[in-house]
């Protein structure tokens, strides 16, 4: 230790000119206000601002210079033998010089900063928002980085060895490796985790650099090239070890299965047994994962992306899923990927760039995809060839909701529903209906609907022929059944608000109504069917054969609306959280599910696949 201090003292004795320069510069902020042009500003403001700038600038510049010369100057002037011919260990030499450099930086900063800071305390705090300790930590950190990087780059480049090209290549490699380690975390919404990993990597790098000099001098001694080689070996091997560990960590983080999730969100599309399972992973801070989960078999497929809020992403034949892959969770744009759930196939990059808030739909057979963006630009793609078939601009304003579906692979129907928010002028509510012929590339305005109500909901029947428009006026709501293509009125009926009105497969309207004692009644085609007591009840699914699944907060009711009977009621379990997509999903069509398809149901932290008719529950996983 005493040797370390002896060397530190020795180096500091050589730095008197630096301290003198700092002392002289410390006077500058006090003298500057005398310069004409500067006089206009408040004296203390100038003093403290200039003083802070000079202090930081000088310290950071000095840090870089010291980094390069600390060992570098003795090496290039062949004066290292002065130390090596004495009983001084390589560590003593390195740490002695390092301490001297740090002390020099601290003293210079203090000498430059505090006189002007004390000259006008309040004005300084006014002009800078950071707290003093935080500011010092940042400046100190930057100075340390410059010092150590200056040393590393100085050693590598000043040795004039051709192997420096290898160092540069490894630097690029390390940068790529770090990006590869961080990226999967960002893709998984793990902002906090990423920050922590990045900070740990930075700290590890600083530790490596703090130690590198001791190793370098122990192995390179008085020879400049050998110093370079020893430094490179130490830095790259240590960094490789750190990156491998970090890589293994990221690999572990990314490797989740549905049972590793807590706070799970299971979203079941209206067709098929595949659900989207999304949740925060246990023990992985804020890392989230998305899966396609088959309620029938328990198989899961990991999707490295997000599902769109508005687009269900599942083709009607249940065989193709489309989802969005974002470069990181804050990105607004990404690329669409498709995957065939249940097969061993990998996700395919469609190379279609889509914004997070665009709507997209798959054709029923999953062969084609249509995207409509916020500006009304509609494009139809063929997935197999990844070709854009046709494009057209649909009349659109910023406040409209765009919904569309493939009537056939060659024909798209588009509903432009305005406004999206009910604060617009009442006179402007309505829906404009268009059809787009993909082959002919022609857009036709086929119909429109108008209403003066504040809230408007549109749903299309499963066969695409009829549409239901619900106009909600707060006190009352009316429902209109219209032609899905032309908007021509077919029938009108009272409704129970957007949340409790739906369109059945047979083209009729069904409503749910609650009385004062929380007893609910299902009203279909004139039939009134009591469906039990519940705090809340919503239309969840229509099953083939004239049955409805109604979902409450923690209960489930299956009703045969043709025969007007409640088939089963389940208390204590309910379908997993799902939004009510019928009013805003990109595809406005209702679906009819097969009665044998299981429902995703949760009870006491367990996900079950429940047969709607028999009520049989199979435990899938716990969360």
């Amino acid at each position, binding site marked *: 230790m005493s040797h370390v201090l002896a060397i530190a003292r020795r180096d500091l004795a*050589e730095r008197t000119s630096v301290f003198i320069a700092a002392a002289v510069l410390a006077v500058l902020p006090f003298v500057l206000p005398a310069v004409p042009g500067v006089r206009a500003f408040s004296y203390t403001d100038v003093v403290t601002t200039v003083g802070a700038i000079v202090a930081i600038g000088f310290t950071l510049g000095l840090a870089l210079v010291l980094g390069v010369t600390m060992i570098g100057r003795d090496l290039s002037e062949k004066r290292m033998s*002065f130390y090596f011919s*004495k*009983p001084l260990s390589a560590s003593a030499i390195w740490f002695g010089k390092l301490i001297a450099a740090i002390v020099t930086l601290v003293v210079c900063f203090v000498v430059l900063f505090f006189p002007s800071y004390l000259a006008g305390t309040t004005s300084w705090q006014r002009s800078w928002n950071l707290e003093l300790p935080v500011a010092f930590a940042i400046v100190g950190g930057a100075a340390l980085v410059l010092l150590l990087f200056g040393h590393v780059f100085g050693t590598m480049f000043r040795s004039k060895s051709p192997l420096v090209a290898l160092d540069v290549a490894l630097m690029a490699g390390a940068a790529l490796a770090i990006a590869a380690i961080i990226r999967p975390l960002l893709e998984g919404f793990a902002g906090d985790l990423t920050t922590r990993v990045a900070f740990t990597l930075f700290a590890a790098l600083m530790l490596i650099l703090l130690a590198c000099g001791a190793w370098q001098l122990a192995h390179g*001694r*008085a020879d400049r090239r050998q110093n370079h080689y020893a430094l490179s070996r130490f830095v790259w091997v240590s960094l490789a070890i750190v990156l491998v560990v970090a890589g293994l960590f990221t690999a572990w983080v990314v490797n989740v299965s549905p049972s590793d999730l807590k706070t799970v969100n299971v979203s079941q599309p209206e067709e098929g047994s595949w659900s989207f399972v999304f949740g925060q992973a246990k023990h992985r801070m804020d890392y989230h994962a998305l899966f396609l989960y088959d309620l029938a078999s328990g198989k899961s497929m990991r999707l490295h992306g997000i599902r769109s809020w508005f687009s269900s992403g599942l083709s009607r034949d249940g065989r193709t899923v489309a989802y969005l892959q974002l470069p990181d969770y804050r990105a607004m744009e990404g690329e669409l990927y498709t995957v065939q759930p249940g097969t061993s196939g990998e996700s395919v990059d469609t190379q279609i760039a889509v914004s997070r808030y665009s709507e997209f739909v798959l054709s029923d057979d999953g062969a084609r995809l249509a995207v409509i963006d916020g500006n009304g630009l509609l494009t139809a793609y063929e997935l197999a060839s990844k070709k854009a078939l046709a494009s057209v601009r649909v009349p659109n304003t910023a406040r409209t909701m765009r919904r569309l579906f493939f009537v056939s692979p060659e024909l798209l129907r588009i509903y432009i529903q305005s406004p999206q928010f009910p604060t617009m002028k009442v006179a402007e509510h309505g829906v404009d209906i268009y059809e787009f012929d993909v082959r002919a590339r022609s857009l036709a305005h086929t119909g429109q609907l108008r209403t003066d109500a504040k809230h408007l909901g549109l749903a299309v029947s499963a066969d695409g022929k009829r549409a239901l428009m619900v106009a909600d006026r707060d006190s009352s709501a009316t429902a209109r059944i219209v032609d899905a293509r032309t908007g021509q009125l077919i029938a009108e009926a009272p409704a129970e608000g957007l949340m409790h009105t739906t369109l059945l497969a047979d083209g009729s309207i069904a409503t749910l109504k609650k009385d004062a004692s929380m007893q609910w009644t299902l009203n279909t085609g004139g039939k009134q069917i009591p469906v039990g007591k519940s705090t809340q009840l919503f239309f969840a699914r229509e099953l083939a054969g004239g049955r409805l699944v109604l979902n409450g907060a923690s209960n489930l009711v299956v009703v045969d609306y043709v025969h007007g009977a409640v088939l089963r009621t389940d208390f204590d379990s309910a379908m997993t959280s799902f939004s009510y997509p019928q009013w805003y999903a990109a595809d406005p069509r209702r679906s009819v599910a097969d009665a044998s398809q299981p429902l995703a149901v949760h009870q006491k932290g367990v996900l079950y696949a429940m047969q709607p008719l028999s009520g049989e529950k199979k435990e899938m996983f716990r969360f």
Partner: protein
Amino acid sequence: MNHAETPAIRIDGMTVRYGRRVAVDTASLTVPRGSVYALLGRNGAGKSSLVRCALGQQRATSGNTEVLGEDSWKHRTRLMERIGVVAEDADAPPEMRVQQLADFCASLYSRFDTKAFDARLDRFGIAKQTRFGDLSKGQKKQVSLALALATTPELIVLDDPTLGLDVVARKSLFDEVIAELADRGTTVFLTTHDLTGVEHIADRVAIMNDGRIVLEEELETLKARFRRIRFAAQPVALDAASFRTALVRNWGAGTEAIVSNYDDLAFERLRSNATIQSADVSAMSLEEIFIAVAGEKQ
């Protein structure tokens, strides 16, 4: 370990390569304790590389080096406590004053004889407040020597200590070394071009040529076996008497031969047997021997 038995320096098969250039080629030498060992060689022969590796300042490409019984690369830090080094290039920081240098060194070694150091500086006539960079080349060497000796080392290594010194400075440097030898029996290992100066004090010499040690022996034996023989006529019979000639060349009207395995009796026998009438044998100075061994090929 018996101190008297382990050599001060033992180099075994040292090779030093810089890329493709071989600076030291499988060099081996042994410096006995208490001896004065001179390593001679022309410029670029590889002496400095050998010394640097011996002192653990550089890593040899291959070979073993033991100094005072310990591996000089692995144990450099604790070995330097026992070794004094006077480098070829003065390497102390130029702004450092001589007094500061002394204080710095005193803080690093367990033994530092300040009185002896001051006395030496006095003898050299150097003021303690002078900055190292302001000293002449010779004075820098003198200060380095004073510092090296003040730590009472068991071995001192001097790399070309008289380079750049005038006659007076050279004498005073040797004076100090001799006094040290007499007082403490320190082992001395030096490289030099000053063959006349070293001729008087070296016990053993080694000659290095193109990275190889071409000769290593006691100085006395070396001088005993080299002779210059001048003939008025052709020296036809030399080979017959199995004399090894290092050099044969014309000299005036006759011939001059440098013999490297001279023996008085053998030569007398030759003279009485052969037809050569006149031959003049003279001993050679170390410088002349060196030129014969390491000089340019005639």
